[in-house]
């Protein structure tokens, strides 16, 4: 087991270099002048462009630029944005909010999705099954930005139950509605995945054995059936945590939450390689660590899976 973990951690290194270089190159190698629209209708003064070019090493080849960036990164310097704000500070401001938002979304989608999936999976066809099927189809078919804006306008402007934007502090209470918007799509997937998985395993040998042994129903479902059925769902939730961290662009934009999603978007838009690469490094780490955790959990959940 420990060897497996070590191997997985070592794999992080090439992935780290690969992704950061790709992102860095993609951001800076985009054709066009990053300073073209900076000074409004007038072209920027040459002295300004020269200074910025020197500051961001834009005259160097992309490889030299990348290694200079990495060098700084290893000394703890995440670089600066065009307006002179340190990227480390930006990430420091943004990530706690996004983590909170992502966790709320995951909690909502896991609780509602799993319970809906278990209920329908156990009962099979019927009114409840049709209801869940219809509502999940509905959720899957509407894009997140629609969900978010509808929730914002109906609950905020129309009913006055919530504020249209999340305040500076971004408390848990304020993040619940954005969390619902963010998690709604995955919630639907989780419900479906769980349902299928449970429905399949319901007739598996080990379930029959457990029932034949005279185990109480709650134990059959809770321990034998659920433990095995939840593995594909777990994989989904795991990758979803990563996706939620980076994919919250829309929700964060709609509710004006100062998080990672907005940061990465602004970075791409203003061609600020330092910001984008910084955030992506962070997201890559999150993805890799989460998928490692998920893999390790498999072994715990299903004793048949071993890593030797």
């Amino acid at each position: 087991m420990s060897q497996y973990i070590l191997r997985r951690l070592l794999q992080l290194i090439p992935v780290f270099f690969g992704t950061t270089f790709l992102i860095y190159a993609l951001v800076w190698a985009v054709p066009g002048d990053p300073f073209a629209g900076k000074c409004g209708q007038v072209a920027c003064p040459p002295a300004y462009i020269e200074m910025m070019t020197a500051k961001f090493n834009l005259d160097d080849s992309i490889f030299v630029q990348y290694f200079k960036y990495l060098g700084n990164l290893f000394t703890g310097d995440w670089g600066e944005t065009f307006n002179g704000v340190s990227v480390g500070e930006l990430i420091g401001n943004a990530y706690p909010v996004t983590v909170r938002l992502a966790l709320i979304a995951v909690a909502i989608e896991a609780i509602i999705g799993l319970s809906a999936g278990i209920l329908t999976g156990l009962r099979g066809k019927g009114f409840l099954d049709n209801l869940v099927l219809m509502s999940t189809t509905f959720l899957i078919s509407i894009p997140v930005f629609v969900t978010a804006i509808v929730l914002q306008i109906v609950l905020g402007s129309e009913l006055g139950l919530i504020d249209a934007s999340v305040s500076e502090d971004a408390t848990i209470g304020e993040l619940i509605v954005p969390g619902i918007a963010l998690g709604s799509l995955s919630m639907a997937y989780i419900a479906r995945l769980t349902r299928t998985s449970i429905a399949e395993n319901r007739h598996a040998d080990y379930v029959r054995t457990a029932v034949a042994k005279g185990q109480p129903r709650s134990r059959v479902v809770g321990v034998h059936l659920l433990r095995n059925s939840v593995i594909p769902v777990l994989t989904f939730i795991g990758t979803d945590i990563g996706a939620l961290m980076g994919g919250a662009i829309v929700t964060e934009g709609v509710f004006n939450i100062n998080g990672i999603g907005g940061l990465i978007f602004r970075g791409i838009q203003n061609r600020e390689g330092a910001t984008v690469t910084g955030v992506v490094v962070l997201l890559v780490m999150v993805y890799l660590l989460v998928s490692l955790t998920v893999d390790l959990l498999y072994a715990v959940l299903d004793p048949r899976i071993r890593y030797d």
Partner: protein
Amino acid sequence: MRASRGFWGATAVVATAALLLTACGGGGSGENKGSGATDANAAVSVYGTEPENSLIPANTNELGGSKALKPVFSALVGYKADTAEPYNLMAESITTTDSKVFDIKIKKGWKFHDGTEVKAKNFVDAWNYSANGKNGMQNASFFEQIQGYDEISAKEPAVKEMSGLKVVNDYEFQVTLKGPFSVFSTKIGYLAFAPLPDKFFADPEAFAKAPIGNGPLKFVSRTPNQNMKLTRFEEYQGEDKVKFKDLEVRIYTSQETAYQDLLSNRLDFMEALPPAAKAGGKYKTDLGERLVEGKLLGISALALPYYVPGYNNLDLRKAISLAIDREQIVKTVMNDTYAPADGYVSRGIEGYRPGICEYCEFDPVKAKEFFAKSGYTGKLTIASNADGGRKEPLVAACNSIKNALGVECDFVPATDFGQWRSIVNNRQLTGMGRSDWAADYPSIENYLNPRYKSTGSSNDSTYNNPAVDALLTQADQTADKAAAIKLYQQAEDLIAKDLPQIPVWEEKGVGGKSNRLKTVKLDFGRLADYASIEVAAK
């Protein structure tokens, strides 16, 4: 599905941000008089966007940064919110006999927010720093008329001071220009001419994180992408004192969300409205008497580049101009947030004359005649960045041209403002191009020199008429203001004959306020006139 999430988010944010990027200025006022007492200790919040550059006056020329810095710094000259008329703010007097040597006395007893007194040298030092090529300030060229600018703006300047700047005593300094420039005393109200305290020069980078100014509000704190907080400077001496205590410039990623906050009174002021609110004139019913209308100083035009084959044809220019139904487009596509343009200068600018552009009327019959005479064959195109509501009116203009002239007309989109400007600056247009202008300071000069002088910084159509150049230069050098304006007007007359650009519309400036605010005005540069804000007492 996850892809669509990112895509739509991207589209929405690009649209908003580009709208803000491109919206740089203009002028006027809107007012809603309330009754009852004013709460002098209230907090006010205004819609904001993340500043694009470091918070140094000479490095700030876009709306996001200006919103935070304008109230922190007071320049020598201020502009009245209603009329854009300049008045002496920090200056005691600005005197000149020849419009070449300006003697500037400043008011005594003014303080920076750190308690040090504002002296003449604070202006001189600030201007020298800003013009210095080594420091790479975005607004360096604003100092170009001052003697010695050419030496100091070089890449590795040998000098540290412009020869045209001399401190006479603590409260007086003298500015010598390269040649007479009658508009100089109006120009120095621009933010780049603000004084800087001694602390700045010790560590400009630290200063940019917490700017110290001499204006009505002082800097308190800033959380990037979140907000900037300012508070009233109690020792402020100027006449543009504020009548509230705290100001929060709240950064929004989406204009739509800010608008929702405005409607529910969680945000006090927005100087622009999101496209969704403008559609179908929805903002009028949404806001009612909370609507704030201004008079921006700016103009939208179509540049017809001389370097594009076939476009260097006066009859074609006339035909296109006559074929655009400005009234109709302004009303139906822009929902009355713009007004038709009829000249090269905004209404309300001293020297503006109505109807200078004689081909700016809609006249399809005459348009057709000119088009036949031009002998132009092929397709016409209008290019612009397509985001932020730029596309729709231009598509409408194209349709108007198509219907009137019976010629194909296409809208050619560019991805964003940056790409768009690099196309224009690199002279890569293949047809007409959107060419909008927002005045930096309220003067007829600022409309003509940058756009129509052959060496102008924003001469998008590469217009080159020696007679116009000569008149503009002569006007710049005329000490007498009235005589100078006459010369600028003569230049404008020549430009109107050549039609290097086709004026289309002028933005009115439409914003909104919360019902907490009794009054607020929108100034010519699309900023709230902070001095006009009054909050109703509870």
